[in-house]
Each structure stands twice: as C-alpha cells, then as structure tokens.
C-alpha cells in the first residue's frame, strides 16, 4: 500500500474525498465526481448527469450531500427513482448502491463503488490498530501500554499528546531519567517535539543532551545505540557528557514503518529493508552517573520500542495529515460553493431584449462563464472561456467576471473594458493564463456594439440567415501591448445574437468528427431555443463524452 511522504502523507490524495458515480449505459461506463451538491439528474441538458431517454424526466432527481451522508431525492419524476430495485422518494445512499432513473433497462448508476478510491490514511490506521504484538517474551508484555496508546489514536489524533505518551511509556519501560522525542522536519533536520523526565515533567530544552551521539545513531544502520560513557574513553571528553554527568545514552532512530514487515525475532537478524527505511525521527533517553544505570535494558525492549514508537509517531502524523486534508477539503468545498454562487446568472429584465444561456460542464469546474448587466438604455451580455480548468481557472474566471461586470455597470466603452482587463492580467504575470471573451451591448434602438477577444465569431441570426461578423481582437491576458477595437451591428426586431464557446464546435462524435461551425450555423438557423441546439449537439455526439465545456448565450432583440 502506498503511503504519502512523511511531511504530509495523504494530502496528495485529497481529491478522493469526493465520492464517485459510475454511469453504466449498455457497454459503456463513465465516472463522475460528486463534487458539488445538489447534483442534478435528468433529461434536461443543464443537468449534472444528463440521461437522454424519454422515460427519464426533465428534472428527475437530485443527489444531495447532508450532514450524515449522501441522499438521493426524486423530483416528482414520472417513472420513478430506484435504489437497488426499490422505488424511493428519498433515500440515504450507501457505497455500491445501484440507482436507476425511470429507465430501468438501459442505464444505471453505481454510487461510490468500493475499490475505486479510498482514504489511505484511514485504511492504514485501521490496519495497524488491529496488529498484535507477540507475547512470547515476557518483557514485551509491557508493550501492551503502547497498544493502548495506539488505540487511543483513533480518538485523540493529537500528535503532541502521542509523543508525550511515547516519552512517558519509554521512561517506564527503560527506567531512564529523561526521554526526548525528535521529529524530522521539512529541511531534513531533527526538531525536539517532546521531552519528559521520570517525574513526568515536561522538558523543553535539548541543549543538555549529547547531540553527537544522536547524530551517530541516525547515521548508523543500527536499530538503536546504547552508549555507556564510563566504558568508552573517547566519549568522556565530549562536552555535554562532561557538563551534565551523563552516564548512559540510548538513541533509537524512528524509521518509517514498513506495513508488511514482521518484527525480527532475534537480535541479529534485522531485515535490511527495515533499516533502509526513511528516518522520521528519533527517541533519545539518558541517565546520569549519580542515578540509575540503564545500560542493561534488554535489547528486546529497545527493539520493540523502536518499532512501536515509530509506528505510533507515523500513525499520529497520518491522523494529523488526514485532519489537515479534511480542513483543506472543507475550505475547498466552501470556495467551490462561493464560486458557483458568483457564477450564477441573474438575468435582468429589459423591455427591448431577452437573453438565455446554457452551460454544459464536462467534468470539473470549467473555465466557461457568462453574465448579463443592464443599465438604463443598454443591455450587455458577456461570455468568456478561461484557459485551463479547476481551481486556477475558477480564480481567474471570478476575477475576470468581477472586472467586466463592474466596468459594464459603470458604462465604460467596451474596448476600454477589455484593454483594462488585459492590462491587469498581463501585469500580474499569471504564467500563460488568459481568456477569450465576447462582450456585446445592445441599446433600446437595436444598435449592437461588441468586442470579440480571440473568441469564435458570434452568430447573428436574422430572417433565417446566419452571419458571422469577423471583427476580432487578441485574447485578454496574453500580450501586454495588445490593442482592442469594438465593432457595431444593427439588429432588427426578432434578430438573435448567439455567443458560443469552442467546446461546442469542437464537440466530437464517436468517429472523431467535430461539430464544426457549419452544423452549428445550420441548427442556429432552424432552432427556436437553446435547448434545441443542445439537443442537436447531444444527438451528434451520441455517447461520446465532451472534452470541453459547452456554453451558448443567446440575446434576442425584441424591439
């Protein structure tokens, strides 16, 4: 089993936090991630999961994330929602549940199948907390203390507490005077993480320990290093040993546990694999001349400590990392819901025009978005496609949207708006991040001004004819010295302006053909609603999933 790096194990798998859906349609399977709630299912093209079958209702069902898990809720569908064959109104989902929406033979959905992805940290924990320690040596029975601590891990999960427990327990087992736990930090050095003396007091100063012996232990291949300073003359001169009257020093390097490896049975047979393992920290014990002699502590105990303490420390780190990942995940979910709300479009009502827009996102958060602004005598729409996907695209999209929106409200000339946006993005050096966009602003009398920045030319549908005005500029955010010009058109009552992203023209069918401009223009000429266009697009693609977001915004001049 793979475990993350020692510095932040588990974090790299953060995306596993979202459950998955697998849509099975005939011979085909498709995975979807439940990364937002509610997740909609239906025949309508704007659903998160579109099932194009007449027996599926337009708004069929929702999958919602609630405090105690995921629920499916039927939205009054005609043919019903089924979980494992039973018709349900609302039902909590368990892993591997089979969901069917109206159409019971052609397609079904498996909720979060087992074996696809899982939380490594939690699985790892459950695996090792069940581990038994051999009791054939009586000394080792004492190590049940460690096991108790290990069990507590699942409830406490606080690294510091665990380290103090390790120090205390080790002191009890070895009868040493002082115990220190060191953990390796990012730069590779060891940092004191916990210190205790035999009276149960915290020690926060590590200047009185022998760092030279600590280093030696870390660089040796041994499981532990016991140093009796009275026996070795060359040590007697070392500063800390002289100054603090140290007699015995025990150093135990803590190595990253090998999940599969069994503890060695005898003193000399040590698996080379175990010793080559990454050092995650060290346990340091010492006692002074004046007090007890700990040099005779049984090797079995020290070896057991080395293994168990490393196990504990690693577990604690995993729990901590998992918690950090959970916090991160929560933050990301909040960010994602804010993003979705920012991107929600509230279409203003004006007497001379109306608009509608549809976005079909293919997978994760995409880079397409549109919005609309009305001012006294004008109505403006804009559509942008930010390059890239995911969080970085979402951030850029939000900023872009905010700038364009506020400039439109301030009735700034369109060419100035995009020039300002371009200046902003190129000055910030966003590393090859840019956007293509179209802004169009229509006045009461049908005068349309638009600025196209590297976007597909708009479609102007007038009297069953489609025109593609070619006037265009560079995308925004690519070149600092780009200049922008807007163009003008006159719309007549009933004329329509369509803005589309290239996800539409580049949608592919199973043969690898693109939808292309010709098909788009043809359907735009005939269609009376965006839904018709999306339905034609879905027909063309068949079952072939989209590579890119598809967005179409339509503005109708009603006069």
């Amino acid at each position, binding site marked *: 089993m793979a475990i993350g790096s020692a510095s932040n194990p588990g974090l790299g798998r953060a995306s596993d936090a979202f459950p998955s859906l697998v849509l099975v349609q005939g011979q085909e399977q498709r995975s979807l991630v439940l990364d937002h709630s509610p997740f909609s299912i239906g025949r309508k093209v704007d659903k998160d999961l579109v099932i194009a079958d007449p027996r599926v209702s337009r708004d069929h069902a929702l999958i919602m994330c609630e405090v105690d898990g995921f629920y499916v809720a039927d939205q009054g569908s005609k043919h019903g929602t089924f979980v494992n064959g039973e018709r349900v109104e609302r039902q909590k989902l368990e892993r591997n549940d089979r969901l069917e929406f109206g159409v019971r033979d052609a397609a079904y959905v498996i909720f979060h199948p087992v074996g696809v992805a899982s939380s490594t940290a939690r699985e790892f924990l459950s695996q090792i907390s069940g581990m038994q320690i051999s009791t054939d040596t009586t000394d080792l029975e004492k190590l049940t203390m460690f096991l108790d601590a290990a069990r507590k891990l699942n409830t406490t999960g606080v690294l510091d507490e665990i380290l103090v427990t390790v120090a205390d327990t080790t002191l009890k087992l070895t009868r040493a005077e002082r115990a220190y736990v060191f953990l390796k930090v990012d730069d590779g050095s060891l940092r004191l993480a916990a210190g205790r003396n035999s009276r149960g007091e915290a020690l926060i100063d590590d200047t009185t320990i022998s760092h030279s012996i600590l280093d030696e232990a870390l660089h040796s291949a041994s499981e532990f290093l016991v140093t009796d300073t009275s026996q070795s003359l060359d040590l007697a001169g070392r500063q800390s040993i002289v100054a603090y009257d140290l007699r015995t020093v025990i150093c135990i390097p803590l190595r990253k546990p090998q999940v599969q490896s069994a503890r060695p049975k005898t003193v000399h047979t040590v698996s080379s694999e175990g010793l080559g393992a990454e050092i995650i920290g060290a346990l340091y014990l010492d006692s002074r001349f004046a007090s007890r002699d700990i040099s005779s502590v049984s090797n079995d105990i020290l070896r057991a400590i080395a293994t168990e303490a490393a196990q504990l420390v690693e577990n604690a780190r995993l729990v901590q990392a998992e918690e950090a990942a959970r916090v991160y995940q929560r933050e990301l979910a909040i960010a994602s819901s804010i993003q979705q709300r920012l991107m929600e479009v509230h279409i203003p009502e004006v007497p001379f025009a109306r608009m509608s827009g549809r976005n079909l996102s293919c997978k994760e958060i995409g880079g397409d978005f549109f919005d609309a602004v009305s001012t006294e005598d004008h109505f403006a729409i804009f559509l942008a496609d930010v390059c*890239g996907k995911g969080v970085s695209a979402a951030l850029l999209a939000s900023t872009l949207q905010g700038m364009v929106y506020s400039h439109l409200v301030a009735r700034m000339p369109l060419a100035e708006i995009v020039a300002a946006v371009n200046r902003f993005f190129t000055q910030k050096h966003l590393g090859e*991040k840019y956007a293509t966009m179209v802004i169009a602003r229509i006045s009461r009398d049908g005068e349309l001004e638009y600025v196209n920045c590297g976007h597909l030319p708009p479609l102007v549908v007038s009297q069953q004819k489609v025109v593609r005005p070619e006037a265009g500029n560079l995308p925004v955010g*690519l070149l600092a010295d780009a200049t922008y010009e807007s163009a003008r058109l006159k719309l007549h009552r009933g004329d329509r302006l369509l803005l589309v992203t290239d996800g539409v023209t580049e949608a592919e069918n199973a043969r690898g053909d693109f939808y292309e401009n010709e098909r788009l223009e043809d359907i735009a000429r005939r269609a009376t609603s965006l839904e018709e266009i999306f339905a034609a697009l879905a027909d063309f693609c068949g079952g072939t999933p989209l590579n890119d977001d598809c967005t179409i915004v339509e503005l109708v001049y009603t006069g």
Partner: protein
Amino acid sequence: MALKMESKTVGGVTVVRCIGRIVFGDEASALRSTLKNILSTSKKILLDLSEVSYIDSGGLGTLVGVYSSARAAGADIKLTGLGQRVRDVLQITKLVTVFEVYDSEQKALAAFH
C-alpha cells in the same frame, strides 16, 4: 507524451520541427523548455508546425509565452507549416497577426536574412 521535437540548423537558423499535439501539461512544458534551451545559443528560430495535429488553449498560451519572451530577449521566432486546425485557432484568436507566419520553410528562412 504526444509531442516530439527535432531540430536542425540551416544557415544560422535553428529549425524546430514539432510532431504531435501541443496541449496543456507535459507537451507544453516540453515545448517551453526545448525552446528555452535553444534560445540560449540561437537567436533565430523557425518553428515548423506542419506535423502538429492539434493545439489546445493551454498549448497556445505556451506558444505565445515563449514567443514574447524570445522577442523580449532580442530573438526572432517565425512559424511555418500551419495545418488547418492550427491555422483556424490562430485565426480565431487573431494571433496570426502576432506571429510571423510563412507558407514554406524556404520562404521563412529567406525572411531571416
């Protein structure tokens, strides 16, 4: 990775032939680092894109990024061999007005002199 690059020198111009797809990720990174390397020794680069089947928005960003930093460093990059898809993308984004594009390697090479 779906992008290969081969380079040769013709009369002081480094001709880089790209074969495959220029898309966001490894391909775009490879293009960026290869051109950066070449730029350290050559100030005249001709990119032959005749065997580039596809370029996505990320790849386009990289191409422009490399182009502008080369220009800023006093180097000259020209393009040749634009297939239909690449030409369409450059046309729609109007980047065709930014790059110096030539129909053939000969014409492009002549333009360097």
